[in-house]
């Protein structure tokens, strides 16, 4: 019998191993990518001599394992290393990018959960009827429209035609809170897809849950409809949706590259994108640590919720 406490302890332990694996894998991947920081820096002037010189200046001529070992040793001291491209500490890269990313993620999730769950429950309540078809078609339609097209539409209408919000956050730097209007379109674009996947999963679970004898029993006993839906049925419908939500939060925190680029929001996605393009291994590695930890924690959270809402799993023979 594994109690919840020992289960969490085990998962955290495994999480540490997973993060290490992520870091190793990312290191291997960046190494496996053709070209290195020197080649990336040389750009369209790939003079072999210059590349060799850059390599030497960046210490890239040392064996990969040695560099990894150095980096790991630094990590143990809490030092994420310095960027190959600029010589600035990796920590500052991550710290700079984290603010906008967190803000965007928090806003999106704050809107996503009520809309996604609400729409899913609404559709499930009216299964097969007009409301259901409408909600499903709308969310699926928005989902199937590519992100950029949806973004263009919003920019054209909300920003350029109506002038309600600025079209991009260019020039606002990391201080996005001072310009909340600039976040409207990015958040809407970020919402467009997760709302659909969340709503569809909630709908699927809710149809079965609302149809179950326990929901019928609660209704029979005059428990208010809202409470039947959200208090009784939803917990049983939530496990897959929670996984989906965790994936979404993970995606939001680990860099939403397209949206950041389209609206000039200098978040972690932009940092990652540039670092990969520059083959700035220490920065990519630093991000990998952050992303690895985030993913592990989120997965653990989602699994905890799933366990909480399916308590019988503990007792299975």
């Amino acid at each position, binding site marked *: *019998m594994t*109690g919840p406490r020992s289960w969490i302890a085990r998962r955290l332990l495994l999480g540490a191993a997973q993060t290490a694996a992520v870091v190793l894998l990312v290191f291997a991947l960046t190494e496996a990518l053709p070209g290195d920081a020197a080649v990336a820096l040389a750009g369209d002037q790939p003079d072999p001599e210059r590349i060799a010189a850059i390599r030497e200046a960046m210490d890239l001529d040392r064996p990969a394992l040695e560099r990894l070992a150095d980096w790991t040793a630094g990590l143990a001291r809490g030092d994420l290393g310095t960027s190959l491209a600029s010589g600035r500490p990796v920590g500052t890269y991550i710290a700079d990018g984290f603010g906008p990313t967190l803000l965007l993620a928090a806003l999106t999730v704050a809107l996503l959960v009520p809309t996604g769950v609400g729409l899913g429950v609404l559709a499930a309540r009216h299964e097969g009827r007009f409301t259901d078809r409408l909600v499903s078609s709308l969310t699926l339609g928005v989902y199937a429209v590519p992100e950029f097209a949806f973004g263009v539409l919003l920019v054209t209408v909300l920003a350029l035609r109506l002038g309600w919000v600025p079209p991009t956050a260019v020039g606002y730097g990391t201080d996005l809170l001072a310009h909340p209007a600039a976040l409207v379109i990015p958040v809407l674009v970020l919402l467009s897809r997760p709302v659909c996947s969340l709503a569809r999963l909630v709908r699927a679970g809710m149809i079965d849950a609302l149809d*179950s*004898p*326990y*929901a*019928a*029993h*609660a209704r*029979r*006993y*005059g*428990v208010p409809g809202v*409470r039947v839906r959200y*208090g*009784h049925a939803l*917990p*049983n419908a939530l496990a897959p949706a929670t996984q989906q939500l965790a994936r979404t939060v993970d995606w939001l925190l680990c860099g939403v590259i397209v949206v950041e680029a389209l609206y000039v929001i200098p978040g972690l996605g932009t940092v990652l994108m540039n670092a990969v393009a520059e083959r700035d291994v220490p920065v990519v590695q630093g991000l990998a640590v952050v992303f690895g930890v985030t993913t592990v924690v989120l997965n653990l959270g989602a699994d905890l919720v799933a366990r*909480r*809402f*399916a*308590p*019988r799993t503990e*007792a299975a*023979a």
Partner: protein
Amino acid sequence: MDAVTAVAEIKNLRVEIDGRAIVDGVDLRVLPGTVTALVGASGSGKTTTGLALLGEYPAGALVSGDVRAPDGLVGYVPQHPAAVLNPARRVGALLRDVARAQVRHLPRRERRTALRERVLRALALARLPDAETMLRRYPHQLSGGQQQRVVLAQALLLGAEVVVADEPTTGQDPSTKRGIVEQFAALAREGIAVVLLSHDLDVVRALADEVLVMRDGHVVESAPPERLWRAPRHPWTAELLASGSGATRVEPVSEGATTLEVGPLTARHGRTAVLRLPGLTLHPGACLAVVGRSGSGKTTLGRCLAGLHRHHDGEVLLDGVPLPRSLRDRTRQQLAAVQYVFQDARAAFDEHRPVLHQVARTAVRLRGAAEPDALAEALTTLAALGLAEDLVRRRPGALSGGELQRAALARALLARPRVLICDEITSGLDTVTRKGILDTLAALVRDRGDLSLVLITHDPATAALAGRVVVLDAGEPVEEEAPARRVMTGA
């Protein structure tokens, strides 16, 4: 008497599914302050009639007749309590949700304490001791009888004018049952209308003001209990009332050999030990009854033997060979040798597949029978238990509680087990059917010679079959070899 207006009324109800009437021409008046009992054969339409009072019908049913459902809420104790207990919520939350409407009139500050008081009182009335622990548990952490009493507590909390109770006393030991009977009597005294659907004739006799006897969807007779017991008019009623006592006792064939041997065994749920057994042996052809209060660990014992409950220390030996703790590790022979019939038959069936196929699979998987042979064998076995072919070709949802119980037994029997553990398999059966089943089982033990039965039961008639009785109390055997009669009637 007729001056009192009925709180609910059914006139000439007909419920038809696929052109077959499962209830036909039923009239029922539910009067305040009275207990109306529906008795009758398993599958005769009691549950269907009871649900009609709630305005609920099976999916796809064609309904005709006049049904006047009660105006307010109706308390309902379903036959299968597990299904209506939300698996993701604690018992406390489930009870509080029902009680919340009752405290709405109070000022906000007082609601909490009032709510708590009511919940605790309901638990006490439903004879659920140790309320604090119960409230923190999830439904799956309760024994069958405990689940039933939680559902009863919900019904009591509701404060409804009408309570429909479908087999509220199955799975309860005699003293608890007496408590529940008192509770219903008290309800009736308060002016509440109680509709009791039950196979337990003692309970019906003690409680009912009016008894309706059903068979094949018709009410064959209705009368006050005194009259009914004194002078039943319909032969079927007579038969039902007569088949009270049990079948012939089964004595072990040989004391020497042992089929199953259990060493000292302690079983746990989490950290708490719920069963401590010094040891147990089972001889070929023997029949052992396991009785005891609800929640005393009977099911846990059965599940330990069957490999469904892994968290125990101690060994279970089959023919001197230790059985793997989990049934996942048991070989097909081992699986076939020790079969367990689940207490909650409905939960133990796959709701998507016809019952017949599920029953036949046992023969295919555990005995390597060919598919057609298995089906034929399943049909015969099911027929012997009183289940017709057109019935078992349906999915579990379209069978009545007692029908499913018999199907579950058939499924285990098809393994040709050497040890058959039956967990409350007669709780949902009328006396006639029950007698038939017990006779079948007794005959099987006699004919096969190597079959041993473990009957987990609250029913004296069933326990009477056993040559040996183990009484469990709080997880420990208090008496063995006790005469079944005494154990079953009082404590």
